[in-house]
């Protein structure tokens, strides 16, 4: 199991497009993927789940990956957060 802490840095937060990017990226991997915000945990491969997190700029999230390709999955998702989802800053 891999656990990563990430911060939402992009201005708009996890709105529709970033949420879609997370789900699409996560779906490329076999590992299970959960996102926890405060005490609320959702399936990171569910667009409905990710959107209901309503994570805004500055929010801290805990990402959990479990499976054969968990390390690669974790890197790929963390990279999305670091790049601010390609949002122009």
């Amino acid at each position, binding site marked *: 199991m891999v656990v990563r802490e990430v911060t939402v840095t992009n201005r708009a937060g996890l709105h*529709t497009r970033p949420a*879609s990017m997370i*789900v699409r990226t996560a779906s490329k991997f076999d590992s299970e993927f959960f996102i926890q915000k405060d005490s609320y945990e959702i399936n990171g491969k569910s667009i409905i789940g990710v959107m*209901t997190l309503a994570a805004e700029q500055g929010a801290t999230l805990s990402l959990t990956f479990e499976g054969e390709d968990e390390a690669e999955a974790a890197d790929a998702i963390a990279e999305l957060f670091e790049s601010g989802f390609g949002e122009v800053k």
Partner: protein
Amino acid sequence: MLSDSQHVELPTEQGTPERHDPFAGEIVIEGIGVAPGIAIGPAYLYARAAFEVEERHITREELDEELRRFERAVAKSERDLNKIASVAKEKLGGDSSSIFEAQALMLHDSELYDAVRERIEQDHMSADYAIQTVINKHRQLLNASDSEYLRERANDMLDLQDRIVRHLRRGKLLSVVDADSIVIAENLTAADIVLFSRRGILGTAMDYGGSTSHVSIMARALSLPAVVSTHGITNHVQTGDLIVLDGLEGRVIIQPSEETQTYYRECQERYRRLQHEQKQLVPLPAETIDGHPVRLMANVEFKEELKLLKEYGAVGIGLFRTEILFLMQRRISLSEDEQFATYKQIVETVGPDPVTFRVLDFGGDKMLPLGHREHNPFLGWRGIRILLDKPELMVPQIRAIMRASAYGPLRILIPMVTELNEVFEFRRVMEEIADDLRADGEEFAESIPVGIMVEVPAVALKARRFASEVDFFSLGTNDLTQYTLAVDRGNDLVADKYQELDPAVLQLIKQTVTAAHDVGIKVSLCGELAARPQATPLLLGLGVDELSASPVYLPEIKRVVRAVSMDETRALADEALSCGDAHEVKALLKHWMHKHACDLASYLERDS
């Protein structure tokens, strides 16, 4: 003035008798009559059936089929959404497509997809009910949120539900509509109307819409009595209620009394007689009493309408709206050969009279399933603006039309022109295509007339310049009116300000005609105004050479043409141009009509 012997009068029994008073117990709803005729029959409420989901359970035997239905609806919804998203991205870029991409992802989201399957498999819910149940749960969560963003996402989920349910029901819906019913709906699309009409319904009434909205044009084209803009008829009608639909007066009567029914059956009979009488005008030439010919042509959207040309005495097609072919197929592109086959058939059927093909006029209220939302579509990406941006739409169409020109006379009409450059660009494309066709050994007419729609006031104001660059003008008075008066013709709130007879519009028509005649080209008029007999003398007086309307209106127009002289219509036009507003013009026309005794059936008079 006409002498008495030249009066054109309807037999007296065909005038509408004194206004009929409603009886207690019946509900009378007023709207706008947009397609003439009277229908009496049971109501079928379409709107609620289309989107309201009922609690329904299925049997074990139905389980597999229900899951397959769900799969098919998901697949179709996904196709829709991907198409919408890709076009949105291509044209608008950036984030505009993300909402559709997210909806497409939701379709396969386990929270939705697996949950729905589970409800069907385990709880034996119908697919519709399962979808609603699952989506309701998510919507409740989202709606309870403090975040406005999340509350908006609840609406996205409802959109998604509607989309899937629509796909689940398509086909099913049609089969439940009885042939002899009157369809009551909040709003129908042009495509809905066609499907219903093929099913054999008697008429339709809607909550929304205006007389020039596309669905109304379609109802007229199909001779299907229709009343729109009823402000909530769907709240008063149940499926099965007996209804009288009066497409002449724009009225719907729910649960009519015996007396009312008898009265309307008489009206129906009178209307049939009037139609019969109009038939006698069909073989007669459309010319004024002083021998000035006017070409009466047909506005056509479907191949099915071609037979109406002969029936109502149309001399060719003044406006063939090619985009309808595409809208009917719900496809963004039809191949050149598919289009060619249709155009060829039309030209062969209508020849030797000419067919005017208006090239694709998407945008405005005629949305392809493009999905991009413009704040102001009527001032946006439409008509020639789209075509010049998208050669993949324009080139196959022009090739198809040019190839069809080998089989009969045709003209090409360009919509939504504002600048000369658009005409030059269009002609350049045509020349290139001509070279290609020659190289391919395809036959086509060497001189195909090219005209433009005059629907943007700028073009009417620059008519002199345009007249030397094109072969004909076609006045699109519907859009010309809304652009000149800044009134959205589909907006109920300002519908009363949409006045085609405003002197400003008339002035633009006059200016266009003068510019055209100075260089010897002709002016056609294909807006709804062409279909209104009250306006015919005025249009003649303004110098319009051709009137193009739904074929059903042409006999009545011809009756008026044959009853007037050019001198008197020119005097009328001069007077109308000096009026202060549309109401004065209408009063003038009404007075003039009575004075000149072109006493039309009062059913047509209510418009003025």
